[in-house]
């Protein structure tokens, strides 16, 4: 400990004596560490943003779509034949233990009118459970209730985009809008969610009770009054998604009387699968950026090795003297190693500060979200120490192996 402190003192003095040279040497490490921190920050910021978007779609969300069926060898597109019903949704909610809630939905494009304004948007017929599934909250007013669904009440909930376009800044709650010539009372406005991962405006929507939507807006399919477009399902937890999917598949196959070996007449999709590709690519990007930044850290390390070699040569007589007065090889080795590590750690600390500042600037000016984790700071710090050890070892070894007689005679 005593010796280590002394070594650090000697190292700091040597660094101070050659101030400019040391600063320039450290610059390599400073840039390297700063680049690693900023780039990893940008990368994990992007990953976090994608995760946020996935969350905005709804947590633990599973979507059941009517599947394609074939009739006389002609395969029809998904939804061409009614295969999914409100009863399926109810059965899923009741019989699958891994499912928290399930709501049937129908959707279609509509023109919404209020006074002189009108707006084309998507209408969705849903039940109040939809709010839970999609993690919606209300900006103003109330969501419609189960009673509204049962009574096919003419009530609607607006997305923020629709509300702004029809009502500008005034509160739409209680106002009456016209959807396909049917008057609806606005019950409330949803808190905005922003863009979906695929770039769609998730707030450009109006939600209606599913019963009203089918009877008054889209018209009832005579073949099956209970048909629905999709069933939205929320699993009880993130780890229950696979289990819930299996339970639903078994249940629906049984309900639809599909024999073993026959294809499903429905499709179950879970959104995390869809977006995991995006998340993976963001992670690859952050690894790539980190790798590129590490290259500059290695270049910085080579700079340290270079300067340490110069320093060892310059101080040959000092090394000879130290050996003559009783320094062992490991004393000399540790002295120069400590000097290299001190140099790289000082550079690393400055680099962390610069890197933090850089990522703040990036998120401020480029509007990219960056996320600097304490872990990446710790990693950068340890990595710069490692660079010091790795690139300081060779010069230190060279010093330790000097012949004291030659070294003392060195001019």
């Amino acid at each position, binding site marked *: 400990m005593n010796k280590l402190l*002394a070594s650090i003192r000697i190292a700091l003095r040597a660094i101070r004596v050659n101030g400019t040279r040391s600063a320039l040497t450290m610059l390599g490490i400073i840039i390297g560490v700063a680049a690693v921190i900023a780039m990893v920050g940008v990368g994990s910021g992007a990953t976090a943003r994608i995760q946020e978007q996935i969350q905005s779609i709804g947590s633990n969300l599973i979507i059941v779509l009517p599947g394609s069926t074939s009739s006389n060898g002609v395969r029809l597109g998904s939804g061409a034949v009614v295969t999914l019903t409100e009863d399926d949704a109810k059965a899923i909610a009741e019989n699958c233990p891994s499912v928290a809630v399930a709501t049937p939905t129908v959707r279609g494009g509509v023109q919404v009118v209020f006074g002189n304004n009108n707006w084309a948007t998507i209408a969705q017929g849903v039940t109040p459970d939809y709010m839970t599934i999609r993690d919606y909250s209300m900006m103003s007013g109330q969501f419609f209730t189960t009673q509204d669904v049962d009574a096919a009440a003419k009530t609607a909930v607006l997305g923020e985009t629709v509300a702004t376009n029809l009502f500008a800044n005034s509160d739409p709650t209680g106002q009456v809008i016209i959807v396909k010539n049917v008057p609806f009372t606005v019950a409330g406005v949803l808190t905005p969610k922003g863009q979906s991962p695929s770039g769609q405006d998730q707030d450009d929507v109006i939600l209606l009770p599913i019963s009203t939507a089918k009877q008054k807006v889209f018209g009832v399919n005579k073949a099956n009054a209970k048909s629905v477009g999709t069933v939205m399902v929320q699993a009880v937890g993130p780890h229950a998604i696979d289990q819930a999917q299996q339970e639903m598949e078994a249940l629906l196959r049984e309900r639809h009387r599909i024999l073993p070996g026959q294809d499903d007449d429905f499709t179950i999709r879970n959104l995390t699968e869809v977006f995991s590709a995006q998340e993976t690519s963001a992670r690859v990007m952050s690894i790539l950026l980190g790798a590129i930044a590490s290259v500059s850290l290695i270049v910085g390390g080579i700079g340290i090795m270079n300067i340490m070699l110069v320093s060892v040569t310059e101080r040959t007589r000092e090394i000879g003297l130290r050996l*003559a*007065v009783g320094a062992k090889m490991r004393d000399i080795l540790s002295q120069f190693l400590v000097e290299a590590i001190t140099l790289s750690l000082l550079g690393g600390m400055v680099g962390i500060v610069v890197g933090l500042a850089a990522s703040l600037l990036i998120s401020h000016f480029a509007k990219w979200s960056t996320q600097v984790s304490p872990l990446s700071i710790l990693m950068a710090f340890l990595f710069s120490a490692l660079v010091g050890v790795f690139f300081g070892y060779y010069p230190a070894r060279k010093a330790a192996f000097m012949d004291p007689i030659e070294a003392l005679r060195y001019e």
Partner: protein
Amino acid sequence: MPAVIEVKDLVKDYRLGEVPVHVLKGISFEIERGSFVAIMGPSGSGKSTLMNILGCLDRPTSGTYILDGVSVGELNRDELAEIRSEKVGFVFQQFNLLARTSAVENVELPLMYTNAPAHERRERALRALKAVGLEGLEEHQPSQLSGGQQQRVAIARSLVNNPKIILADEPTGALDSRTSIEIMAIFQRLNRESGITVIVVTHDPDVLVYADRKVQIKDGRLQLTEAITRRDAQKDLERLPAEEPERVAST
């Protein structure tokens, strides 16, 4: 008195490419504890090589060397370093002080490689500086000291670990004659008062006169070793015309 140094059939060969060079060709002598020896010889005689071996900086090719009861011929690098740390003090022609480092820190240097705690290092360094008459200059850096003062710092450094022998290689080679006598006076006093064995390697006959024994080397062989009557450097100094006492050089 028992011998502090016993050298027997000391041989040192170097290899210059394919050609072996015999530098020391079988040297035997003893140096008694507490003596003041001058090793003389023309350049190329092998006296530097002999000094390096005596100072445990180098190992003989063959022969035995016993320093203070320890046979050091077969020790490895780090063991030799330990012997140097415990038993040997060096004084060089070019002083070899660390630049930008205060006198007291320079003197502390050998203790950095022992287990002495910081306060003890400082205490012993201050005592050694006092012994060479440099009180008040402890915090001066080498560039602020005259040549004579720098060599005194170097002597203090060689003293600080209480060595059995002090090896001085041309200690007055870079100094004027008056300062040379001052340095020799310090060596004589240390030798007399502390009983440290002092070995001076020189080719300067003016230095020889302050030793009490002369070892003459020529062509790698011991030419002669004889006792001489030493002159008192302090008295010589008093006989010299009075001079401005040395000032601290620039500050």
